[in-house]
């Protein structure tokens, strides 16, 4: 059986997310309950979470979460990390052994700062330096896979139903201001933990439900921009598009939405001329980054969350609001189960982004 990255595996999925706009932290219990309500949308072959604001004690350090297939991989990877980073703290990620989760790899966590001398020699900005090191480990060091690399955030994922993965990682012990979750329904069985979602790079994490038909157009474009796409998954490609547009080119999330799920020409033609010019420009310059085919995605980033549907809305996505909390899920039931009394609930239109920043409350 080929593993993720050697073969492209389509999947269906469930996604969920919750953010507290006031920045108030809460534990991972809520998101587990929310995603568990959509048990039927996963098939036990992948689940995971992204949590923001969970490492206040090391908020300035990059938190690297790494899967190792074997001790040699760990040894090689740590040697590599020592050469490029100052490791402030390291240890195994605490897990709870439960019968539903088996075949777990070695799962380690490192809080690191780039070595100042290496960083200045590289003439890269800090985020680019870290991103390149992540690519280097993931493409060069056999058996090692960095699956989370942001600051004050972390991804927790594996093979299993998402609620079981949540219990396995003891997610209820983490407190953050924003969580996202993913339950996967792949069409075949890779059984590799790195293939589960969310997919992350630096502070960005993406959970995605759908199968994009523009995959190879997007992938080949991103590879030209220096993103090696090793997993052959849509989520990887979408994450890199966001990293490219947000971190490298400085586009805002509504602008990013206008690139990856732009309005149709027939809609653009009816807009005032300044808007026409703006959308035509983005569609022309970034035509290869249009994401086609069905998707609903939740993008976690430092300080907020963005939700987006494909331009035809071929995947479900519901948003609910109560007080300072905003909830997102593939199904409204997954929101109602954690907050039955919503002040507002709606399904965003295709291509219409919902961006929530903490501090908006």
């Amino acid at each position, binding site marked *: 059986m080929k593993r993720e990255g050697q073969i492209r595996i389509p*999947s269906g999925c469930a996604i969920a997310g919750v953010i507290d706009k006031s920045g108030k932290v809460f534990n991972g219990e809520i998101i587990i309950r929310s995603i568990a309500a959509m048990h039927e949308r996963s098939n036990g072959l992948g689940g995971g979470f992204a949590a923001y604001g969970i490492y206040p004690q090391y908020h300035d350090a990059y938190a690297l979460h790494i899967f190792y297939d074997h001790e040699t991989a760990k040894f090689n990877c740590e040697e590599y990390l020592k050469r490029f980073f100052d490791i402030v703290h390291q240890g195994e990620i605490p897990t709870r052994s439960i019968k539903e989760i088996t075949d777990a790899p070695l799962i380690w966590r490192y809080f690191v700062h780039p070595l100042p001398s290496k960083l200045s020699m590289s003439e890269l900005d800090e985020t680019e330096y870290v991103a390149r090191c992540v690519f280097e480990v993931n493409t060069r060091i056999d058996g090692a896979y960095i699956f989370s690399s942001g600051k004050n955030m972390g991804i927790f994922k594996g093979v299993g139903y998402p609620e079981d993965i949540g219990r396995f990682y003891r997610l209820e012990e983490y407190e953050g201001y924003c969580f996202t979750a993913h339950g996967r329904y792949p069409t075949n069985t890779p059984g590799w933990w790195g293939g589960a979602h969310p997919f992350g790079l630096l502070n960005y994490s993406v959970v995605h439900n759908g*199968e994009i038909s523009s995959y190879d157009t997007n992938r080949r474009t991103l*590879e030209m921009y220096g993103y090696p796409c090793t997993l052959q998954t849509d989520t990887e490609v979408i994450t890199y598009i966001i990293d490219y547009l947000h971190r490298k*080119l400085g586009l805002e999330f509504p*602008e990013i939405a206008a690139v990856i799920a732009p309005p149709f*020409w027939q809609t653009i033609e009816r807009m005032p001329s300044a808007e026409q010019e*703006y959308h035509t420009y983005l569609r022309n310059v970034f035509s290869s980054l249009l994401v*086609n085919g*069905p998707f609903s995605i939740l993008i976690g980033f430092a300080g907020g969350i963005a939700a987006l549907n494909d331009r035809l809305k071929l995947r479900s996505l519901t948003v609910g609001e109560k007080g300072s909390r905003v909830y997102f899920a593939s199904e409204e039931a997954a929101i109602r189960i954690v907050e039955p009394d919503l002040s507002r609930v709606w399904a965003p239109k295709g291509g219409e982004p919902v961006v929530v920043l903490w501090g908006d409350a």
Partner: protein
Amino acid sequence: MVRNERCTKCHICQRQCPYGVHQRIVDSDTGAVHIVADDAKCVNCQRCVAMCPMRALKIVKSNCSYRENAYWSQKAVMEIHRQAEQGGVLLSGMGNPEDYPIYFDRILLNASQVTNPPIDPLREPMETKVFLGSKPQTIVRDHTGRISCQLPPQITVAMPIMFSAMSYGSISLNAHLSLAQAAQELGIMYNTGEGGLHESLYQYGKHTIVQVASGRFGVHPDYLRNSAAIEIKMGQGAKPGIGGHLPGAKIGPEIARTRMIPEGTDAISPAPHHDIYSIEDLRQLVFSLKEATDYTKPIIVKIAAVHNVAAIASGIARSGADIIAIDGFRGGTGAAPTRIRDHVGIPIELAIASVDQRLREEGLRDSVSLVVGGGIRSSADIVKAIALGADCVYIGTAALVALGCHLCRSCHLGKCAWGIATQDPELVKRLDPEVGYKRLVNLIRAWQHEIKEIMGGMGINAIESLRGNRLMLRGIGLNDRELSILGIKHAGE
């Protein structure tokens, strides 16, 4: 030539045939009328067959042939006879007809099933609009933070199809007018070729690509300005490395004026541009043309698909060109030396794949658009070309076929019975531009519908998501080397 009993001896066939095949003979003794045919003169243009009101004519393959020989084909022997007689270079019209692999026919397309839905083009928008030009990946904002929407000049086409370069001279004014009107109605472009632009066609300037070729015929400031884009022709798929020659006999007063040469003189385009002996010279011409048009027109550089096409294309991308046009070895021509046409160059499918890949490896794919031509026969070929990496296609032969061409490949004789590749006023009249342009519009609209259907089946609703999307393609009956050059998997993988 087979004529059946339905023939009424109306001798329309005689009047229609410019090659003198049919002849009406009246028996001086009996007064009986016969129509006889000289088969040796027939080029199989099908004009008489199509025009016979009684459907009495049929052109069949003659079984009068040389002794069979698997190595010395009849064609090879006959060509030697011709050359032994005349001592000349063999000439041919239209594209390479020889039996080389056709990669388009060895590539299959994908469609959505279950995990993502196909999209119905009759119910949902299906977008085919394409912009061609350089697209720098930098974001500039004004003081209010708004994105500045300045871009290098682009051309916009409603669908990824343009009419490729065919000069006034190689084809008739009526053919040019048909192409120009169709381009305007369809929101696409036609291309003047190297023969200048007839005054009556200036009104179609927004849909015109004007060509600057090695002969520089008809090139003047108004010509350059009266265009959507300017194309520098470095090469042509039908005759890479070869110039052009329009015989003086075809240079009547109108063509002479348009080409800015004396009437009756041969119009000879040299093989090279004599101011371009290398890539650094090309850059100078690119910028001369940009200067001449105040940087308002995208510059296309057209080359033939030859062995090192990928390296050449990457050089062109670094030379200020906005668009690269690549012409495959099946590309048509009014006249080319047969040996060149049939033996020089490579298939466009392989050229697209290797050029697109090389430009990506060098990070140059955004700085140029890729227009490909040379053997595009159908909407399926277009979809495959775009999925391999092209932005847009050029069609030449297919457009002429829409105008009535039956691919008899005798353009070089200048007696086109369909009024396309001729300057004989009597023959030119046969092509009514009103009818011609409608046929072109019909063809391209039909292809656009088909492209939308295919895209919808793939779950794609904007053509840009098809560009370079090689996962949508699978090879059938191709070897590993071919698959790796095309960058596609084999069917079943």
